[in-house]
């Protein structure tokens, strides 16, 4: 299994957010990840590059917005491989994550988009 080259604190933050969204069957876009992690944009997109290259995350374009001039957002979700690896990594590096994930409130609908075909229950 290919993995992100470097494990850093921002990477773990992003994985936590992705795991939370994965548990709830939701897809994340860049702005949602930025807000949830509080990290800088270039940092987040650098991590997304690494995660996509490692096949931990896949992205797809959202449907064309009503206003054709509005640029489309790209929505990301963990792959099954990525989810397992992220869980493993977080448990190893941040033992408190499991409990925190269970306690975290669900992100608001403005930030996240429900992923079609997933019920939103625990994986």
């Amino acid at each position: 299994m290919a993995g992100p080259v470097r494990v850093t604190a921002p990477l773990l933050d992003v994985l936590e957010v992705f795991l939370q969204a994965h548990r709830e069957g939701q897809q994340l876009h860049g702005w949602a990840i930025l807000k949830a992690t509080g990290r800088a944009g270039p940092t987040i997109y650098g991590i997304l590059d690494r995660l996509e290259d490692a096949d931990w995350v896949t992205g797809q374009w959202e449907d064309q917005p009503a206003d054709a001039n509005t640029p489309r957002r790209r929505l990301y979700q963990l792959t099954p491989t990525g989810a397992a690896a992220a869980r493993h990594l977080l448990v190893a590096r941040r033992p408190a994550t499991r409990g925190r994930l269970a306690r975290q409130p669900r992100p608001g609908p403005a930030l996240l988009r429900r992923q079609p075909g997933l019920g939103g229950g625990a994986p």
Partner: protein
Amino acid sequence: MTLRQLAIAVAALVVARLGRLTLRVSPRLGVRLVRWAARLRYRQDPERAAMRAEELAALVDERPGRLLKLLTGLGFALHALAAAGLRARPGRMPPPVARFIKGLAGLLVNTLVAVLTYEAIHIVAPSGRWIIWAVVFVNVSAFVVALPVRRMFHVAPRPELGVIVGFATAVVIARMIGVGVGAPAGSAAAVVTIVVVGVRGRRRRRATSDLEAR
């Protein structure tokens, strides 16, 4: 109203006008900056560059507030520039280009230091013991400006040191006789110095290569 007060009032008006204009165009500017940053960041991967360009434009679009949109664009642009700079390490560039870039960066920083030093001296000693401060300024200027200029044009130290000391002395003398000089004069003098030193360095290199050819 004195001329100085009038100048400050005009400058304030210009700054306010520029500020409003910047705010008005900042969303578009932010989008342009992130698109450019994506192209720069992913030069080796055009497909990802196009993808990120649209995605980042959407990100800027979502940011609340005009200023934040611009700041987002600036952040991505600066990051892409830094990444591009790291990729293009001097070792990979032709040595003259690398030397010129390093020299130019040093010159910009050092010119700023020289000008600030000059302004600080003027504040500390507006009159009176100016000779001591003038000597300090000339020496500081010569030191901080001569080094990067030497690196840029790869010429021997003595001639351009003379030019630098000359221009610094001229600035001090102008100050002494009451001509209003400051940052603009320092910057202009730095530009003149670059041109003079560059022309002299090129002539010297040509002369050297002619001699070697013979």
